[in-house]
């Protein structure tokens, strides 16, 4: 990854000249030193973010229906608009080489874009679901795209032509997220009621189903269900499915619940670790695995604006470190070199955190 002090940035919109400076040695990962290195600003709350596989760009959806791109090592002047959806974009993903951007829109459509275009316009907009498209995820070989939506379906599309390949029906309530297993043969999906399904890509059949009902709540007073995944990923070795969301809903309509991260043992298909913060009422909006053996989760509270980053070791009850954010988190992603985090926030800021000590200028 380029350090924030480096050289020349070629973004799609402009070239930013920076003063040349000798490369600094990289400090080791030390989450206790986590600090903000960049704040990209937008004037509308953000809905999600992702960093592209090359580590050049960070993208975020916003409540103004658009997606924005910034050069990760640039500044606000690198902001580029992706317009084409007619509703909020909730989820983003990329082709393996980072050339294509896929966007899941609440306008029922999937957008396919050239991620690095100077003046982006959609290559294709697919009418993907009857209702919101809540999630998109590219397969490990880059040939397939999974989506799920408010028609309770999980669908598989060909990349890059965007043709519908398969349709998985079985969720009784909205599936919130769907992700490919790293072996590329299976797909996991998670719905409103905390039901996890394991699908076989080749046969199109449901293989297994597991309940995580503790990530769902039925509010007796208001007669409403609240639950679902706000983020979901497989660990890189494919042994664990990691889900971010909520637990212990006591008042759905006031958003009174606790944040939760669930790790599922994928082979045994059983709950491996459950983490919640009893002292913090709110939601986990993003979770990432770090190769040094910990998880990072981002959250937003029920009241106030004290967003959080939690650093978790699997199986431990309390975070080994936490960072208070400048506002409520709406997601989380980690750079390919695993040294920086991107956090989209409710106040419109997209904050980049470095998980090392700051470089000493001396």
């Amino acid at each position, binding site marked *: 990854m380029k350090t924030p002090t480096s050289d020349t940035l070629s973004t799609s919109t402009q070239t930013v000249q920076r003063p040349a400076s000798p490369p600094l040695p990289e400090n080791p990962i030390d989450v206790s030193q986590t600090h903000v290195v960049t704040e990209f600003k937008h004037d509308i709350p953000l809905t999600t973010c992702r960093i592209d596989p090359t580590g050049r760009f960070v993208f975020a959806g916003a409540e103004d229906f658009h997606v924005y791109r910034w050069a990760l090592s640039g500044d606000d002047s690198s902001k580029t608009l992706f317009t084409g959806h007619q509703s909020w974009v909730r989820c983003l993903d990329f082709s393996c080489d980072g050339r294509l951007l896929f966007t899941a829109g609440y306008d029922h459509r999937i957008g396919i874009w050239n991620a690095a275009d100077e003046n982006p316009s959609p290559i294709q907009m697919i009418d993907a679901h009857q209702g919101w498209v809540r999630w998109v995820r590219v397969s490990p070989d880059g040939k397939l795209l999974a989506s799920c939506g*408010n028609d309770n379906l999980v669908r598989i599309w060909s990349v890059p032509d965007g043709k519908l390949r398969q349709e998985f029906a079985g969720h009784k309530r909205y599936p919130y997220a769907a992700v490919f297993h790293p072996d590329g043969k299976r797909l996991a999906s998670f719905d409103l009621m905390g039901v996890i399904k394991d699908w076989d890509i080749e046969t199109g059949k449901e293989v297994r189903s597991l309940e995580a009902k503790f990530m769902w709540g039925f509010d007796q007073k208001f007669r409403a269900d609240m639950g679902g995944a706000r983020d979901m990923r497989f660990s890189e070795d494919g042994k664990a499915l990691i889900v971010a969301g909520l637990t212990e809903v006591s008042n759905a*309509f006031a*958003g009174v619940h606790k944040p939760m991260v669930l790790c599922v043992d994928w082979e045994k298909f059983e709950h491996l670790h459950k983490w919640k913060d009893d002292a913090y009422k709110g939601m986990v909006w993003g979770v990432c695995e770090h190769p040094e053996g910990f998880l990072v989760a981002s959250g937003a509270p029920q009241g106030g604006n004290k967003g959080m980053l939690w650093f978790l070791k699997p199986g431990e009850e309390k975070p080994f470190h936490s960072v208070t954010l400048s506002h409520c988190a709406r997601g989380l992603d980690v750079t390919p070199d695993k040294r920086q985090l991107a956090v989209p926030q409710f106040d419109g800021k997209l904050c980049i955190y470095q998980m090392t000590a700051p470089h000493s200028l001396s």
Partner: protein
Amino acid sequence: MRRDIGCNHIDHQLSRRGFVAGSAAGAVAIGGLLTPAQAEAVKSGQKRILQVFLQGGLSQFESWDPKPGTRYGGPFRAIPTSVPGIHICELMPHIAQRMHRLSIVRSLDLKTNDHRIGRLRIEKGRTAGDFPYVGAVASKYLAAENPPLPGYLHITTRGLEDNTNAFLGAQHAQLKLLGVNAPENLDRPASLDEESAQRRNEFRRLANERFAGRGGQPAFTEAFDSSFEMARRLMKRKSLFEQEPSAKDIERYGSHPFGVRCILARELLSNGATCVKVTHHGYDTHAENFNFHLEQLDEFDKTFCMLLDDLHDSGMLESTLVLIYSEFGRTPKLNQRYGRDHWGASVSVALGGCGIVPGAVVGSTNAEGTEVAEREVSGGDLFHTYFRALGLDTSANHDIPGRPVPIGDPAASPIEELLA
């Protein structure tokens, strides 16, 4: 009033489809599917009210006044309706096809963000004071002389107890039905035969007369009398609560609680009820406003439309005023829980049926929906409008001895553009 402006090709396509669909359904009903009760309800000439109360505060953005693509508009899109130029939120596709039977007021300012005060202002049409609810007024002035059912029935599962009848007499108070269950203790005790029950009632009547003859407060005995009378009427109509909805009704209305409540509402209206209020809970969305409106309006939209269709197809809609309302709307600005909070400053309601111009929009909000832009109306204005639509002179005084109390707030006035 704004109508028929800015329509485009797709508006007309949907309009035609919706209209044809509605007409076809109507033709089938007129072809002989009216129940005897519905036929009698139409023949009687009685006017009545259906109130659908969306408890908690329906978001105007996610229903009648969408602002897609604006700062506070949220993620949902606007869709064209059967009335060219009128767009509503995509969460109400069935209503969109029947927009020509309803009208929207987009400029209600209740000047409160409080559940109870908002509800009282819209139900009583007054900003303060002890006044009767819409249903109680309907029971007093619209009910037949010896109505077969209590005049004001409210199908709900919870809700605050209020003095709904105020000074109008206990017989006009709301009778709350818990879901679709018959009121408790409706059966005559097994130990009491019919003759004994009649003798008891006669004794009670004589005792009341004697009490009144000795200068007793008639209000005391009237309240008891009205309770007994309500019970007597309900005992006679107990079968309304006992009959299982048909499979076809369940398929159309849905098997969820709101579905079966609306089926019961239809039966009560068809069998002589004057005002039936059905509450659909779950709109107080301080968190997850969009996910919850998805759920709630998915349930409300189709179910309400089935009830509206049945009223229309039976011919009862012409004599039934339909109101869809909440105690307020929801804030333009989203909070950090994806919620919208209480908002009384720019609220939308929908009306239709008896005496109401169909397919109209009254008033508007500004581009971001933060305030009323034109034709501000109050709860008092709505109250006048309901009853003027039903043929009641709301400038007249209530029929109570001793003091002149205007039926409608003298400081308010009916929304003339809505009156047919």
